[in-house]
């Protein structure tokens, strides 16, 4: 058919189709724009504007109170009045105003004229300059200069006119101002009054404009397309070019757009706290949020504005952004794309409904769920300690710090190295074992690219174990350590075959028996001999005295023992059972030389032990004849607790032993038949010297077969033992001969937080958890069942519906979270189950792998919350440090503080010493609080010094409680003070009369301004039991407190002060007190200082480096100078000046020598009463009353000048429990009238200076004595009446 001119399609139809398709396209564009406008962040920003306006309006209504309005109206009336008055004056003084007006006009005109003249002048000058450049002929040159001159003259003339006119105007202005002054002042006042309100109103006006044009413009700016041009709805972006992130292969700058939704994240209120505190308001109405002061996400402020986000915090959001800490996808602008991570599956479910949440495994750094929020801190805070103990911010990341402490406690780093450095660059917390041999330490020290580890192996040394215990105990213990000692931290390696089938478990048991026997064979075989100490021949140990010494000499700072109950120390093991395991002397079962040696000189057994030398040297009893050997007594006490334990040796099935030997031989290089041949013949085909590896145990020296079956059996056991030790890495925790250089057996963890999850061996864990996974006493048959139940409960309302307690919910939902993580093959879930039941990953895998290929990780006695803390830490190990400037690098002071904290924990200094005082919070009736009175005996100078050293802290917390006392309504203010318990409430007393007593150690101010009441250190605070709010235990010193209670009963007759004097002192402001170099020496070689104490500072196996850090630590903590201090009073200039001043003040004769007089004073009849001094020994006159103070010859090197002076002014200001009296009360000038004219202040200074020049004076002047013309007026100062019966100082 030929082509026609007819249309193929009906044109009308085509038009209709075209119209329809165009409408479709339009619709698609509209839908697209609609979607764009519905972006979550835009919705949030709109709401936030509403919220912002509401808050500001609320502020406005507070500012514009009725009073304010009244004030405003009054002022307005005044202004109007003044304006009217001014108008009147304008009429009466019309001439003046007219003159001013015309002068002003003249000045204006002249100013313009001058401007023109100046321009003309500039032009002429430029012409002249050009003439210079172009070297014009002389006549033209001159002409141009003349022209310039003429113009300059004109300009100058105008300036003179202008100045004259201005002067005239100024005079008139002053006249006018005198008339308008009232009016002007009122207007300024009005402006000032309205300033704040106007500012807020302007802000509201910006968000919700009242005029039509502005609001129309604002509406327009939100329209599609137009909103691209600087709209108020816009993406807020933080750009951190140096804080890069790795995406696949590329390092790119970090863009965080989080603040597009979280707009108020860094907004603080006037007091510095969050302006929009997070919470769950009851309605969706912003007005209600403001009323309730609770703001939902994403409108709330960061909960910790002191630390994060704000410009004044250490982590301002503009510098750090958000994702460096929280992870997530910073560039994402929707809930999903930001990769929020729910804290548990229930929340995931809620989010799914609310935001369409679903996990996205493609993004490598999903946001940390809140349970792991602290993980990322260690990216920059490599020393971790500052996250747990921080004078400025407190424990800012307690969970990750807890994980860190647990890892230290259980010594995970023995098997799992955590490198803190990569090619010399810090990448994270460094947790590695310290070098194990001298050679290794020297090698590392010599290599600048290497940093030595600093962790000590956590287990005891097994180097000389044969002298310590028996083979059967070793086997019994190793199999299940907790069976012998429930509180042990040694993990369980054996008998973990619950998940195996019955046959396999039986088989495993046999193998394990051979392994246990093997381990003890190797340990005892390799054990090295040791020279043990023994008490003197014929010494009869006293068990009762041993018990007393055990409790008093410091053992209980680290250990617990059921025979001496009451303390909770767990730094060392609970040794109630030690008598069962220790090898006793063969001739006398009541003594053990090993135990004696260990107690007396621990480093003899193990050079690097954390057990210190307690100086338990023998001494003579008070009678002066009987010798007491405390170590022997303590050992006898410990052994007297029972008979030695009897533990059956494990039964080794010979056939299974052979099977095991064969298995290992086959793994080495032997065929099955060759291995069997070796076993049956007892002949290893090589000489011992030619064998490398554990097979040495089987080979004989000469290569001849071992004929004796027992010897061959032993060899086989040793072989299996060596294989087992190598397999389980026992040397990770224990010092073992022959294993000094063995490498850790575990996976290094420094980047485990980013470990590729496909490399984690989940194996059949889901099946395992489906059927097992919970302990036998659990009410759930399996973990799956447990989690399903938890989820159902959460779904049904959780705590709100009463299905959970809060604690339960936290625990169960935590389990649910980790279980869910396992389902998704996440790292967190893997770590959780690995720590809960390490061998469960072998579930139904043992059938298809060799016995020696089974998992090796032991089971640690960890609770689930501890596991979570460890997981938090380990997940934070990402070995991905940000740019250097972001990594936390402490200054010298902070560095010493942080490293010192580490050592406090390492050596358990806090076992004995209080390092942070307890905090007492109580509801104070301010009327009842009495300010400390300054008595006539107190020196003003001393008070000044005290307030400098212990600046007052505001006690009131701002919280209040309303109560009714004696039918009277009262408002009690919560107050927090620091001090020690002075008395406890008597439980037999009527509840309403029960009272707590506290001795204040820090200066506390109650209130401010005129109403302020100040309590000084040393004052007693009585708090009725009903008003106690909270007692925060001190940090450290649990043993000291325990000992004080004990000594009060046994020794001091209830006197708490004396008991404290006998116990380890709190180290409060130790940095202000002692000289750092002295402390350094003292830590390395503690000398005896106090005579009042029942125990001595022990000597730790501390390196000089560590002693240096610890000594610096205390000074760094208090902000005192370190490492060197100037001993000012020994300075010649100082002495000369002081002498001159004293002479000038008439306190010292013209020819008197200051130091000589001082020395005389010091040697006078006062100090020597209690202290050995100047060659004279302290003499006891009344043993019951007299207290010997420390020798004064050490003061010079030991104490800092200011501290010593304050101490002399009033000792109880520093240490409330001291017996040292005020020796020079201000109001006693008759004590030594001939010394410095009897001036006590000068006498104090002189005593201090004599003490600090002690050696020199002893050299120059030697022993001196001095007797005042009249007898000293009294032993103790009247001002110190509370302590007067204690006669003399014990504390220096």
């Amino acid at each position, binding site marked *: *058919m*030929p*082509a*026609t*001119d007819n*249309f*193929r*399609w009906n*044109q009308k139809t*085509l038009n209709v*189709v*075209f119209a329809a*398709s*165009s409408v*479709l*396209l339009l*619709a*698609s*564009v509209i*839908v*697209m724009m609609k*979607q764009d406008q519905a972006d979550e962040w835009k919705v949030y920003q709109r709401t936030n504007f509403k919220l912002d306006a509401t808050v500001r309006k609320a502020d406005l209504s507070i500012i514009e109170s009725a009073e304010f309005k009244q004030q405003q109206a009054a002022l307005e009336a005044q202004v109007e009045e003044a304006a009217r008055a001014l108008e009147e004056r304008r009429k009466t003084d019309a001439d003046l105003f007219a003159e001013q007006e015309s002068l002003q006009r003249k000045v204006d005109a002249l100013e313009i004229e001058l401007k023109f003249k100046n321009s003309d002048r500039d032009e002429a000058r430029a012409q002249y300059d050009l003439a210079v450049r172009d070297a014009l002929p002389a006549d033209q040159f001159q002409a141009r200069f003349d022209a310039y001159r003429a113009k300059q003259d004109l300009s100058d003339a105008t300036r003179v006119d202008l100045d004259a006119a201005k002067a005239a105007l100024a005079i008139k202005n002053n006249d006018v101002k005198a008339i308008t002054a009232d009016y002007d002042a009122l207007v300024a006042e009005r402006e000032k009054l309205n300033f704040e309100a106007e500012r807020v109103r302007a802000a509201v006006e910006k968000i919700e404009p009242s005029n039509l044009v502005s609001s129309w413009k604002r509406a327009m700016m939100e329209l599609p397309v137009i909103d691209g041009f600087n709209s108020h709805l816009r993406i807020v972006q933080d750009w951190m070019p140096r804080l890069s992130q790795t*995406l*696949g*292969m*590329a390092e790119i700058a970090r863009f965080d757009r989080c603040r597009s939704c979280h707009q108020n994240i860094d907004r603080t209120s006037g007091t510095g706290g969050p302006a929009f505190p997070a919470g769950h308001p009851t309605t969706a109405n912003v007005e209600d949020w403001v009323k309730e002061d609770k703001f939902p996400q994403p409108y709330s402020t960061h909960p910790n504005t002191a630390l994060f986000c704000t410009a004044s915090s250490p982590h301002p959001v503009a510098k750090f952004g958000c994702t460096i800490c929280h992870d997530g996808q910073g560039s994402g602008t929707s809930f999903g794309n930001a990769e929020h991570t729910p804290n548990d*599956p229930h929340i*995931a*479910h809620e989010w799914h409904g609310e935001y369409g949440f679903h996990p996205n*495994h*493609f*993004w*490598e750094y999903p946001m940390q769920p809140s349970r792991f929020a602290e993980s990322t801190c260690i990216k920059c805070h490599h020393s971790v300690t500052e996250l747990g103990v921080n004078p400025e911010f407190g424990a800012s990341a307690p969970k990750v710090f807890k994980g860190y402490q647990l890892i230290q406690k259980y010594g995970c780093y023995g098997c799992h190295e955590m490198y803190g450095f990569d090619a010399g660059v810090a990448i994270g917390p460094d947790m590695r074992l310290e070098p194990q041999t001298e050679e290794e330490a020297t090698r590392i020290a010599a290599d600048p690219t290497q940093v030595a580890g600093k962790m000590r192996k956590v287990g005891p040394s097994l180097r000389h174990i044969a002298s310590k215990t028996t083979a059967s105990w070793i086997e019994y213990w190793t199999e299940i350590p907790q069976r012998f000692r429930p509180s042990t931290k040694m993990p369980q390696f054996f008998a973990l075959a619950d998940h195996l089938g019955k046959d396999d478990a039986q088989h495993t048991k046999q193998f394990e028996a051979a392994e246990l026997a093997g381990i003890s064979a190797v340990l005892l075989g390799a054990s090295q001999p040791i020279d043990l100490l023994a008490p003197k021949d014929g010494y009869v140990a006293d068990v009762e005295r041993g018990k007393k010494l055990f409790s008093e000499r410091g053992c209980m700072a680290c250990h617990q023992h059921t025979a001496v109950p009451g303390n909770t120390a767990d730094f060392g093991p609970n040794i109630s059972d030690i008598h069962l395991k220790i090898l006793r002397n063969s001739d006398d079962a009541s003594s053990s030389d090993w135990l004696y040696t260990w107690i007396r000189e621990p480093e003899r057994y193990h050079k690097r032990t954390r057990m210190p030398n307690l100086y338990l040297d023998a001494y003579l009893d008070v009678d002066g004849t009987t010798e007491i050997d405390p170590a022997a007594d303590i050992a006898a006490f410990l052994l007297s607790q029972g008979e030695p334990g009897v533990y059956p040796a494990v039964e080794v099935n010979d056939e299974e032993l052979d099977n095991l030997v064969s298995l290992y031989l086959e793994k080495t290089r032997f065929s099955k038949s060759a291995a069997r041949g070796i076993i049956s013949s007892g002949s290893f085909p090589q000489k011992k010297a030619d064998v490398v590896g554990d097979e040495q145990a089987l080979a004989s020296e000469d290569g001849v077969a071992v004929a004796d079956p027992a010897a061959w059996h032993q060899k086989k056991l040793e072989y299996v033992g060596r294989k087992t030790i190598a397999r389980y890495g026992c040397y990770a925790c224990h010092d073992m001969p022959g294993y000094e250089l063995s490498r850790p057996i575990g996976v290094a963890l420094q980047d485990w937080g980013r470990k*590729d999850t*496909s490399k984690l061996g989940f194996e059949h864990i889901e099946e395992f958890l489906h059927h097992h996974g919970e302990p036998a006493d659990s009410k759930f048959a399996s973990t*799956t069942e447990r*989690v*399903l139940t938890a*989820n159902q409960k959460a*779904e049904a309302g959780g705590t709100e519906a009463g299905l959970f307690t809060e604690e339960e919910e936290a625990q169960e939902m935590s389990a649910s979270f980790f*279980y*869910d993580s396992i*389902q*998704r093959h996440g790292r967190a879930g893997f770590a959780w189950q690995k720590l809960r039941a390490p061998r469960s990953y072998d579930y139904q895998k043992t059938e298809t792998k060799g016995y020696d290929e089974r998992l090796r990780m032991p089971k640690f006695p960890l609770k689930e919350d501890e596991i979570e803390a460890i997981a938090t830490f380990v997940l934070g190990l990402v070995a991905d440090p940000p740019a250097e400037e972001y990594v936390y690098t402490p200054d010298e002071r902070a560095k010493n503080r942080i490293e010192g904290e580490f050592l406090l924990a390492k050596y358990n200094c806090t076992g004995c010493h209080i390092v942070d005082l307890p905090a007492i919070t109580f509801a104070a009736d301010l009327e009842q609080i009495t300010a400390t009175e300054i008595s006539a005996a107190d020196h003003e100078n001393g008070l000044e010094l005290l307030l400098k050293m212990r600046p007052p802290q505001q006690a009131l917390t701002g919280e209040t409680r309303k109560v009714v006392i004696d039918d009277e309504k009262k408002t009690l203010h919560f107050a927090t003070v620091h001090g020690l318990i002075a008395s406890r409430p008597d439980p037999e007393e009527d509840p309403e009369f029960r009272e707590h007593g506290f001795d204040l150690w820090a200066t506390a101010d109650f209130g401010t301004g005129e109403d302020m009441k100040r309590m000084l250190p040393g004052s007693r605070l009585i708090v009725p039991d009903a008003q106690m709010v909270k007692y925060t235990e001190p940090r450290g010193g649990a043993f000291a407190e325990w000992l004080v209670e004990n000594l009060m009963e046994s020794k001091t007759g209830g006197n708490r002060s004396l008991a404290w004097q006998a116990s380890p002192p709190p180290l409060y402001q130790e940095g202000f007190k002692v000289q750092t170099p002295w402390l350094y020496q003292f830590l390395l070689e503690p000398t005896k200082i106090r005579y009042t104490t029942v125990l001595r500072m022990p000597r730790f196996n501390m390196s000089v480096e560590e002693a240096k850090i610890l000594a610096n630590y205390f000074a760094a903590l208090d902000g005192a100078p370190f490492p060197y201090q100037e001993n000012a009073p020994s300075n010649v200039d100082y002495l000369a000046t002081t002498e001159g001043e004293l002479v000038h003040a008439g306190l010292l004769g013209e020819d008197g020598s200051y130091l000589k007089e001082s020395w005389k004073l010091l040697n006078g009849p006062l100090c020597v009463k209690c202290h050995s001094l100047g060659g004279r020994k302290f003499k006891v006159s009344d043993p019951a009353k007299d207290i010997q103070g420390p020798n004064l010859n050490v003061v010079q090197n030991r104490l800092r000048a200011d501290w010593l002076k304050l101490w002399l002014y009033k000792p109880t200001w520093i240490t409330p429990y001291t017996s040292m009296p005020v020796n020079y009360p201000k109001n006693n000038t008759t004590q030594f009238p001939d010394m410095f004219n009897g001036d006590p202040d000068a006498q104090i200074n002189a005593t201090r200076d004599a003490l600090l020049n002690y050696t020199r004076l002893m050299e120059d002047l030697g022993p001196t004595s001095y007797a005042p013309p009249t007898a000293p007026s009294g032993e103790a100062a009247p001002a110190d009446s509370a302590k007067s019966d204690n006669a003399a100082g014990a504390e220096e």
Partner: protein
Amino acid sequence: MLNSHPDLTPSVLIGLGWFYLLVFLVNLVWTVRSYKLDGEFRNGIPKATLWATYTSIVMMLSFYHFTYPVEGFLVSMPSAFKDFFDAWFSNPVFYFFLSIVGLFFMIQAREWWTKPTVAWVLLNLSLIFMGLSLSDYDFRQIVGKPDNVPIVAMLFIVAFFTWIYFTRAVDNDRRIEQGRPLFEQENNEKVLVWPDLVYTELICMVVLSAVLIFWGIALKAPLEEPGSSVKTPNPSKAPWYFLGLQEMLVYFDPWLAGVVLPSIILGGLMAVPYIDFNKLGNGYYSFKQRSFAVTTYLFGFLPLWVALIVLGTFLRGPNWNFFGIYEYWDVHKVEAANNVNLSEFFWNGLGLAIPKGSSVGDILLRESPGILLTLGYFAILPPILGLTILRKYFVRMGVLRFLVFSNLILWMAILPIKMLLRWAFALKYIVGIPEYFFNI
């Protein structure tokens, strides 16, 4: 909540409800068409009654999906069928043979399946299959992935255009047999550029834009993890249009599968007009007049290209293992893959030691069987073919054209041949010279 892989969820049921509603609507139209055109059975009942019954069942199915809760829901793909299907289809051999058998069945039975009713029944079967399969979690995962959606569409589009071709071809073949004018002659398709062509093109452009925008809004661009050289995705897949090539990589070295074979495909397609001596079939559809050309092309296009894309998309999972369409993509699934070179077969078969040297001579000696075989395949087979079964073509084409033609055919054949050898003998390479990266 803990079962993160539920087969049925409320949203799946709603989605399927809409799907069946759509099936219902198109069948409603079909029923009307059937009522008008199909006539009656002998007893006077309209044939459309069957369609009406079917359509109403589909409608009820749709409502059932909309209204019934997940708990106790009855309609889903029977697990026996799923197991059967997975057992057979998680096997590339069966899949490949099925695609070839399908191709030849399609050609043989073209008269039957191009009938509208048969085609409609087939379409409905495939839709019902889809609907039932979508009730399976794993099937949904693989089919519903945003970047796999166009491939599902492609399946229907390829089927549709193939159907168009065969319908027209069958029609024209019949016309030629009966001596009637061709369809193209009878229905002159020449139209005016304006408005018939340009206007419709404009409308198509507008509609296409709208469809793409709606599609973009409904299915967001599927982004995966950032690229990394140390961690590649598993499975690591090429874009869908290259999945056929990627499938070849299983059987051939990259230089062959990635360079030589694609070049030959392009070159071969360009050479087709010069090789083709058949003047018939120009400008109209016909099968009988071009049966060899069409069969060869369809063999290259359907089993060797489209089927391999489908295979690569839906059946290749983690570790490049085969997975049934209802099978969970378990990364832990391991398949034994031990393949042996021809040279090893040869020397071991003869009981001789394999030449171990690394000199060129040693290598050539070692690989001599494969090299000879390959040379023989490309050098000796063409003359033999030309003298025997392809004699007709040799005569019409002349030497040069025939050699090009036969070599192209042989190149096309090496893929199925290599596949067969791999499956039958676990043959890795015919010529394996890894020393010089030369493996065939």
